[in-house]
């Protein structure tokens, strides 16, 4: 580590010492199984989600290896179908969502608002067990006769019925999704209740950190979207086994209904996985620019607007079905660019003329901005029906959403480098972190950008072999190189965790943070706080550590270290 800005504040704890006694609970596996502490559950979530990321990443590398040359025979076509289905399913259902709202949010949101725990600690633990068992259920499809689910992560209706996709793998996919779906719903309930009812005195709604705001909107979207998916999956199961005809033309059903139901969940899901990382990046950009968030209220309203629009855009995934209202969904999808644009301006405004400290977390966040911009701009193309007709189901779409999700991956890593010291007590090695960043960032661009060209040259999605076509082949090879670079970045990350294992004690506030989580110890004690500062703005820890910096009223003395004040931005 180069420089640590603030020495930890040494001060006699004062007042409210009812809960000061050390929590003497079980340890080891009994602790893991019986805990209801949101930090332990969140850490379990994080570790499980990272394992899922590695598993999904291995699938991705096999897929890319298969596509290196035309008519490759590394895997059979049936295996290829299973691989891309389970790659998408693992990454979307089991990694990025649970990592965001089960991992980071679970640990950080209660601490950011000064709460002792989540509102429903036992429900929180149940969420984790449902998520873990759901993940195991879904992945166990590889070990049954017939293999794992092979109808794509979207499970479109005629293909996912019992005639086209027989076997236990598809049922295990449905069963696993039911469990993880309920897990997400319970986490959503928990987050909303925690944010509404367990804030510290003085922490009004418009003083909550942007990450907490984004998690509130995310949690509301979870509650709106996930029940729809669960209901759709139960209907799919009935079609497969009980002889109903909800999604089949034969009995008077409507196959496209599945697409409506799936995408009514699926598009809010895009914001469910994106908004948390918008929040992560907002926090990091502000802290590492040594400035408050630029346009705090604008950020909140942009998040709310994204949430409000998110329920009206689902059918832009279905433009080519020919049965959806094209202008409505096109307009709504284009409107989403407005709040996202506001966020981009505010992010740039936050960095503008700040004292930018290019730590790993900051680099990852800037990488997020660039990668998300690429994915977001190509999303605007896809919101236009004529362009979507041309590019639908080609690699252009694959490249678009991989730019998006790889940006989220950068955001996830930023979150781990930023908050990891808080919940483990130890910093990660910055040198390894920067190596990881460059592999991840360059790898992402090398792997997605050729796919845009591939799509424009007509290569369809989800094909395991392609005819000998020189431009397709070399673009695929470049893309594979990029995927390997991304794989190396993951190896560097794991090496970094191993190298810096309990080596660099973080102290309470290694980054001179703004929000309440940096006020408590690292890792925080049972029930999170020994004491709380007066909350008079959206960055109480900064106010406490820099008295006189802002005109806000400060309730505490002036014993905090007062190093050089940075000029007011």
């Amino acid at each position, binding site marked *: 580590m180069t420089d640590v800005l603030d020495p930890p504040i040494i001060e006699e704890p004062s007042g409210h010492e009812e809960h000061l006694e050390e929590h003497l609970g079980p340890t080891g596996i009994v602790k893991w199984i019986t805990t209801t502490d949101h930090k332990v559950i969140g850490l379990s979530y994080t570790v499980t989600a990272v394992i899922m990321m590695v598993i999904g990443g291995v699938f991705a590398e096999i897929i890319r290896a298969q596509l290196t040359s035309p008519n490759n025979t590394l895997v059979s076509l049936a295996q290829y179908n299973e691989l891309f289905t389970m790659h998408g399913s693992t990454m979307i259902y089991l990694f990025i969502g649970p990592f965001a709202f089960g991992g980071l949010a679970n640990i950080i949101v209660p601490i950011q608002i000064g709460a002792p725990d989540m509102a429903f600690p036992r429900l929180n633990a149940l969420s984790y067990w449902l998520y873990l068992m759901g993940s195991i*259920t879904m992945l166990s499809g590889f070990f049954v006769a017939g293999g794992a689910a092979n109808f794509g992560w979207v499970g479109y209706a005629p293909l996912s019925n019992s005639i086209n996709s027989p076997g236990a793998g598809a049922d295990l996919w449905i069963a696993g999704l039911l469990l993880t779906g309920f897990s997400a719903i319970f986490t959503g309930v928990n987050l909303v209740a925690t944010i509404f009812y367990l804030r510290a005195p003085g922490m009004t*709604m*418009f003083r909550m950190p942007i990450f907490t705001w984004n998690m509130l909107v995310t949690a509301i979207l979870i509650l*709106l979207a996930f029940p729809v998916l669960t209901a759709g999956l139960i209907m799919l199961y009935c079609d497969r086994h009980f002889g109903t005809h909800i999604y089949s033309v034969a009995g008077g059903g409507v196959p496209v209904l599945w697409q409506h139901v799936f995408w009514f969940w699926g598009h809010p899901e895009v914001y469910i996985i994106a908004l948390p990382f918008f929040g992560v990046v907002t926090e990091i950009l502000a802290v590492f620019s040594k400035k408050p968030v630029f346009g705090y209220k604008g950020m909140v309203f942009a998040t709310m607007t994204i949430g409000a629009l998110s329920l009206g855009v689902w059918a832009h995934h279905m433009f080519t079905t020919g049965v959806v209202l094209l202008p409505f969904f096109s307009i709504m999808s284009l409107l989403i660019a407005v709040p996202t644009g506001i966020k981009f301006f505010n992010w740039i405004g936050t960095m503008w003329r700040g004292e930018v400290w290019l730590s790993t977390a900051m680099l990852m966040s800037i990488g997020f901005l660039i990668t998300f911009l690429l994915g977001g701009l190509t999303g605007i193309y896809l919101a236009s029906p004529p362009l979507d007709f041309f590019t639908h189901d080609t690699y252009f779409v694959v490249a678009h959403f991989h730019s998006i999700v790889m940006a989220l991956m950068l955001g996830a890593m930023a979150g781990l480098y930023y908050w990891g010291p808080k919940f483990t007590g130890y910093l990660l090695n910055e040198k390894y972190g920067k190596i990881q960043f460059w592999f991840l960032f360059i790898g992402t661009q090398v792997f997605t950008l050729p796919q845009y060209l591939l799509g424009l040259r007509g290569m369809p999605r989800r094909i395991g072999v392609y005819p000998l076509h020189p431009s397709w082949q070399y673009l695929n090879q470049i893309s594979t190189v990029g995927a390997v670079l991304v794989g190396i970045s993951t190896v560097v990350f794991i090496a970094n965790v191993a190298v810096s294992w309990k080596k660099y004690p973080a102290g309470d506030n290694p980054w001179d943070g703004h929000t309440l989580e940096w006020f408590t110890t690292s890792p925080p004690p049972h029930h999170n706080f020994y004491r709380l500062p007066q909350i008079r703005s959206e960055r109480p820890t900064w106010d406490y550590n820099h008295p006189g910096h802002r005109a806000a009223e400060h309730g505490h003395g002036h014993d905090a270290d007062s190093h050089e004040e940075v000029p007011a931005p």
Partner: protein
Amino acid sequence: MRTEAKVLLSLGTSFGVMVVVYWNWGHENAGSVMMFSGMLLCFLPGSYFYWWSRRMKSRVEDDPQATQTQGAGIVGAFPGTSIWPFTMGMGAFFVVLALVFGIWLLVPGLGLMVWALFGGTAEGRRGGKH
């Protein structure tokens, strides 16, 4: 409490506007029903919070000038450890496996879930371990 209510009510209102436009323009059933339900799902807690916010005393977390001492005291009962979420989770695991491998798995599945339901409720009545 007022801000919380406004968050939900404004989301619900925007869904309401969207569903009116969508239904009158497209006459598509599935999406209209789902959007309408989404609107209700926001209005239900939102209007409750609004109704309640007009009747309750202002909470310390809504007071911009609140001091930490005003919030001192018991925030709530937070059980330190509990085995019942795990039991419930394993029960749910067996229940969904019954969808795939046979109805007999409902016996351990529902058994564990009911056991966890009673055990967890009893634990909640006792206030839980700390």
